[in-house]
């Protein structure tokens, strides 16, 4: 039983000859992304420290790079690219919707509790 794999990433920008070659290609991509994260994490460039939408720009970069890595692990290592749209949507949309919802609620509440601690009459510096 030989499955047909889709052998292109970046919407067809890079095409691979065989599935094995694609796996090594994706490994190189993931390693580069991780290396960029580690270098940024060690040096923490001052230019990326300004706050955008409530968080440091550097942290936004880390989160976006993480989602990029998650995409390639799911799409190429777990072969989500080769599954039917129905299966892909059942898995990805469900998870993405529920997780975003949960994160929004909890972070919103965490920020509120911080405000209560800092602005109300609660003493913590002892």
């Amino acid at each position, binding site marked *: 039983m030989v499955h047909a794999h889709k052998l292109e990433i970046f919407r067809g920008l890079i095409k691979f000859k065989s599935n094995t070659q694609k796996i090594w290609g994706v490994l190189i991509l993931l390693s580069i992304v991780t290396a960029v994260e580690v270098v940024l994490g060690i040096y923490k460039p001052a230019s990326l420290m300004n706050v955008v939408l409530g968080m440091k720009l550097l942290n936004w970069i880390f989160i976006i790079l993480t989602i990029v890595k998650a995409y390639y692990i799911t799409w190429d290592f777990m072969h989500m690219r080769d599954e039917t749209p129905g299966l892909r949507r059942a898995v990805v949309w469900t998870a993405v919707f529920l997780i975003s919802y949960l994160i929004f609620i909890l972070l919103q509440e965490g920020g509120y509790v911080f405000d209560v601690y800092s602005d109300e009459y609660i003493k913590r510096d*002892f």
Partner: protein
Amino acid sequence: MDTSVVTGTQEKVWGGGNEPLKASYGKLMMWFFIVSDALTFSGFLAAYGFSRFKFIDSWPIADEVFTHVPFLHGQELPMIYVAFMTFILIMSSVTMVLAVDAGHNMNKTKVTWYMFLTIIGGVIFVGSQAWEWATFIKGDYGAVQTKGGNILQFGEYVDKDGEQVFKRVSVADFAIVGEKERVQDNRKSGIWYRSESTIPNYNVDEVYAGLEANSNILVRTQIINEEGEKTVLSREESLKSIKENGKTVVEGANLVANEYGTALFADFFFFITGFHGFHVLSGVLLNIIIFFNVILGTYERRGSYEMVEKVGLYWHFVDLVWVFVFTFFYLV
């Protein structure tokens, strides 16, 4: 009876024998298990985010906590070892997907070797995590916990390339040890039903005496200032804060207190990396079972290596979770 349903023949959409998702039952269920497990992990990580936003101005800085690399004592190398662990896990994901690929081509030798390499990668990762835990629990500098539950750390300003840099000082290096007031209360030495946890090596009075004697040492609080660094107190404030608020000396980490900062930091570290490590461990065990089945030729006889693919999905998921744990614990 012409109303009865004939299965397995002409495809009526609701008549059964129809695979709209073109995936086997086992694979589908593995995907849905992964979705539910992903929600469990996001629950933990979102709770971590909640606590962090709650203490956004005093959360420990990960770069100052995870600085150790095995065999390189006394060097501060933040991120290096975790990056290595991440790479090991990604690498074992690659050997896993190569095993799946070899399985599609019914190549038993290749599947065996790639499964073996995957198991080795998993074992190295779990071992590294155990070492991370041990280092984290042991701690390195020690700190004083105040009555309000805050952590006060120690350090001094030193010249480094013409710049004044704050360098941490270990409690063990400056505390002046006096007479011990008491020993640990054990069941064997006291009343048989009473015992207590380990007493810290130093008490606050000894630390205070040491701080008074060394005029270069200053106290650093948990509060993060505008430059993104922890606030360092002046000499007078340092002495005052230890004398008035100091309660116990904390060395290393447990679930109640840790020397790095708020207790929740260690709690989440143990819980999330522990839960992930448990997943890796069970993944390694599943991989070992599949590995032996491959050697015994079970899938060769079955005519399909789909079991390798299913356990592969789980293994990649463990890698996927680690990518997020890595970001939120060590980077952000």
